[in-house]
């Protein structure tokens, strides 16, 4: 996905490509992705489709008059399932693009993404984390410009995007300390684990990563 060019004029494409990159990145960090939400959506959707197909089938083979009671029921059930699907997408998923658990039984993380404004290239994330043992979920909201990780030709550049995630979301930062930008260290001061991880990572690497992300596009 990340290797594909997207049209810079298409906010939906920019968002989709970024969404896909989130999953790729977190999974590469050994996050365990949970597909329950997608699976429920697919089940409702395909269930509705199967009902419509069945209604089409009996209508074709037995005629309208003989089957209209069943057709009426099928239409009602289909409508209900579509309602359920709409409810699921807008209230339960509510933009969720990733659900998973940090490596080694770490925190649970849910990321929802949005196009923050209709005609501006702003990527908005709502990240909810919750300790695996239960407890109070925490939510942070982030907003960045797509221009930070798409170049002029519409090519996705992974490094700055991953740095953005690692620096802004503590649980990601812990899993990939060398992507954490030093400027954001202030944010992490309350989190001594993370700070330690970042320090030791920086000692190991020579900062080569920092230079590779220079393909920024200013608008």
């Amino acid at each position, binding site marked *: 996905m990340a290797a594909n060019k997207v049209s810079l*004029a*298409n906010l939906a494409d920019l968002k989709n490509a970024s969404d896909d990159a989130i999953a790729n990145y977190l999974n590469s960090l050994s996050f365990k992705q949970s597909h329950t939400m997608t699976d429920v959506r697919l089940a409702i959707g395909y269930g509705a489709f199967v009902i419509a197909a069945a209604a089409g089938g009996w209508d074709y083979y037995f005629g309208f008059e003989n089957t209209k009671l069943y057709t009426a029921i099928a239409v009602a059930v289909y409508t209900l399932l579509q309602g359920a699907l709409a409810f699921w997408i807008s209230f339960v998923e509510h933009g969720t693009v990733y659900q998973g658990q940090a490596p080694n039984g770490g925190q649970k993380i849910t990321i929802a993404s949005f196009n923050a404004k209709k005609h501006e290239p702003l990527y908005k994330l709502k990240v909810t984390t919750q300790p695996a043992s239960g407890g109070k979920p925490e939510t942070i909201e982030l907003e960045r410009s797509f221009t930070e990780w798409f170049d002029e030709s519409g090519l996705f550049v992974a490094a700055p995007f991953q740095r953005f995630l690692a620096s802004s979301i503590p649980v990601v930062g812990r899993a990939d300390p060398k992507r954490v930008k030093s400027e954001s260290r202030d944010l992490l001061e309350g989190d001594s684990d993370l700070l330690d991880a970042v320090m030791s990572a920086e000692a190991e690497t020579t900062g080569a990563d920092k230079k590779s992300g220079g393909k920024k596009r200013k608008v």
Partner: protein
Amino acid sequence: MHNSLNRLQSVFGFFTTVAFTLGCLIALTDLWAERTPSGVIKATNTQVVKGRPHYYSSKKEEYAIIKFSLDADLSSLFTWNTKQLFVYVTAEWPAPEAGMNATNEAVIWDSIITNPSADHLVNLGPIGKKKLKASAGGKSIAPERGLLKLKNQKPKYQISHPSGKIASAEDVTLKVHYNVQPWFGLLTWNTQSDIGRWKSFAGGVSDQFSLPAVKVKDDKKKP
């Protein structure tokens, strides 16, 4: 909104939405236009003859020929959304053989009256069409076409009955009906009662009459 095909799609989608909404609004204006149809109809001459339903038929059936006079004012039915007015006269008589309240009903005369906006669609020769168009005098709505004055009009259709018998039928009435064909929206017929600004047909039903016995006639003549 990122490529031409996409934009074309949106433009077309928007166009259809606007056109459909506009059509619905135009159709709604029908409800606002007052309808006050009225008319007087009476049968002027009736006869029943025997004839064959078609040339090769050996069976003979009775046919009723009902002449009538009609004086109707349907001008209020012509609005900007009227494409044509279909006016028809039916004869109605009881059908006791089919049940207590059963009736027979048959059209004896009809007429397509176009609004000038639809004159070009009429099935007429070039000369007839030209005349029709000229009669509108450049207007697109012609309520005066809804004024009907027919004296002792010959029926367009001679009516019969599946049993082959119609002579001496009793309690026959003639009734004037209209069907407004819109340019967009609902087709409408006579209303049973007043609906908003649409008044029910004032008059439009003849007195009851009986059909005569079969007229003895040279049956070589086709009905």
